[in-house]
Structures are given as C-alpha cells and as structure tokens.
C-alpha cells in the first residue's frame, strides 16, 4: 500500500474530520443564538473561520483552498458588508431612518428581530471571510 506523506497524521486527520462539523455547528449556534445568550456575528465568524483554519493546518492549504477558493472568500467579504448596508437601505426605503429595523415588518418587535438577524449575519460572513483570508495570506507566503 502506498502511503502519502499526509497519511502519517492519520489520527489527527480522523479526529479533525470528527471535530470540524461540531465546530461549524457551534459557530452557527453562536450566530443565531446571540439574541439570547452571549455571542453574535463577530464571535461566530471567528469560530466558523477556525474550522477552516483547522482543516488547512491538518490537511494542507491546497486542499482547503480547493474547498473554499480565495474568490469565494473575496465575494463573501463584500457580501457581509453589503447585507448590513442593504438592511439599512431597506429600512430607509420603507420610510424610517437608516438601520431603524422597526419598519422592516408589520410589527416593530418582529422588524427588530429580522433586522438584528440580518445585520449579525452580515457581520459573521465578513469576519469569517476576513479571518480565513488572513490565514491564507500568511500560510501561502513561504
């Protein structure tokens, strides 16, 4: 049987494969449960990025880059900020101030929920994309 260099780290690889889904799930929990407990978009983005960084450390940057291409990262970075801005613009179009979520839905409370949800999602996407780009940038300069 031919063993590739990376197959020497079998234990690490198997454990990593087991852990990564849970890291991502925890990030999503932190993202969408930030209204009720500690957490929010910023922390969730960092945790989500750490799943990809872990993958990159154990399986090599090449493999991670083929899963999550730099182009996707560049797009996600901008999408996060745009989602945030869009929420503000929509609330303006519906006749209130910029980023006043009261008017997003029929009921102010529901509007606030939707607004905070969208805004936190935007923060999370941007932070995750920037952190993974930082890692790519450092790791590919050798």
């Amino acid at each position, binding site marked *: 049987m031919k063993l590739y260099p990376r*197959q*020497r780290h079998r234990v690490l690889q198997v454990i990593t494969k087991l852990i990564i889904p849970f890291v991502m799930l925890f990030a999503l929990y932190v993202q969408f449960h930030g209204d009720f407990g500690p957490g929010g978009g910023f*922390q969730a983005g960092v945790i989500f990025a*750490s799943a990809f960084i872990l993958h990159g450390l154990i399986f090599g940057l090449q493999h991670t880059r083929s899963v999550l291409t730099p182009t996707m990262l560049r797009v996600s970075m901008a999408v996060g900020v745009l989602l945030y801005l869009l929420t503000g613009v929509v609330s303006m179009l519906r006749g209130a101030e910029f980023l006043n979520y009261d008017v997003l839905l029929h009921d102010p409370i529901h509007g606030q929920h939707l607004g905070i949800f969208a805004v936190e999602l935007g923060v999370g996407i941007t932070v995750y*994309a920037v952190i993974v780009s930082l890692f790519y940038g450092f790791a590919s300069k050798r």
Partner: protein
Amino acid sequence: METLTIMVLLAFLVVIAVGIIVLRDLLAGVVLLGLYSLVAAGAFVVMDAVDVAFTEAAVGAGISTILFLGALSFTKHEQKPRGHDSVTALFFVAVTGALLIYGTLDMPHYGSDLSPAQTHPELTQHFLHKSDSEIGIPNVVTSVLASYRGYDTLGETVVVFTAGVAVLSLLGLRRRRPEEEAPEDAPGDLPTVPDDEAEHK
C-alpha cells in the same frame, strides 16, 4: 470572593507578561500570549462581561495564536540576543509606563458609583429597561450592539472588511498557484517525509 478571584487573575496576567518578556523561546512566548488572553477572558467572565470574554477567548487565545504561529514559521524559534543599549530602552519604557499609569489615575474605580455610566443613568436605564419592550430580545448587549448602536457596528464591520482588503492587496491570494511551487505544508504542519520514505512504514 469576587475581588479575590479578580486579584488572582490579574496577578497571573502580570506573571505571564513578565514570562513573555523574559523568555527567549518565541514559540513559548506565543503560547504564553494565548494563555494571557485566556486568563484575561476569565477575568472578564468574573466581571460579568461574558460577550467580551467570549470575543477575547475566540480572537485573542484562538485566532491570534494561530496567526502568530503562522508568522513564526517564517522565522527562527529563538530570539536573537540583544546587543544594544538596554538602559536607554528601560528608561523610555519606564517613562511611558509611568505616563500610562498616571493616565489611569483619573479613571473611576471598578464598580464605582462615580463612573459616567452611574452619574448619567438615563441612557443606561433606558437600555436596560426598555430593551425588552422595544427590541424584544433578552441579551441587552446584542440589542445595543446591533440595534441601538447599529451604525457603530456597521463601522466596525467596514473596518474588518478594510483590514481584509488591505491584507489581500499586501499579501495577495493568487487564484491558482503553479503545481511545482506549491507549498507542501501549511505553517504548523508536522514535518512530512518524502513519498519513498513513507512507503516503508
């Protein structure tokens, strides 16, 4: 009890900081920096600032450590012995430190009733009492962050975005890297052995 816990944690911070300065081994320094953030996060938890603690643990102890390790893979693991005049350096560090400590003398004590949050209670009271009826979510930190101060958070997100753009333009991410110059390892990888050597295992 709470004061004692904070005192112990802050003492740990000082010990770790001294350790970082004294140690010549950069790898140990990076690990200690991560530990520093973790202890700081512990102190924030004791002060009931769980959101801040969460961020400190995730960014300070997690991501920064990894980025430092990545930076460390460009250089040696041992700090160069210093040849220059350390007395002058000590003088400037002492003066700067004294100025910083002098600056903190004007700050209200921890939990003091003279802090701006206590002497101008209207805003604090509004956030704490009206958040539930106006925003309708239990975590006041999130409602202040995302709704009352939504414009602030937008600015922060743009700052993060700008940082990302700056890194992309400085370090660059080539879309497709030629196979022959592809790096074998990401920083932090364990050393690999060539293919033929691995075959014998």
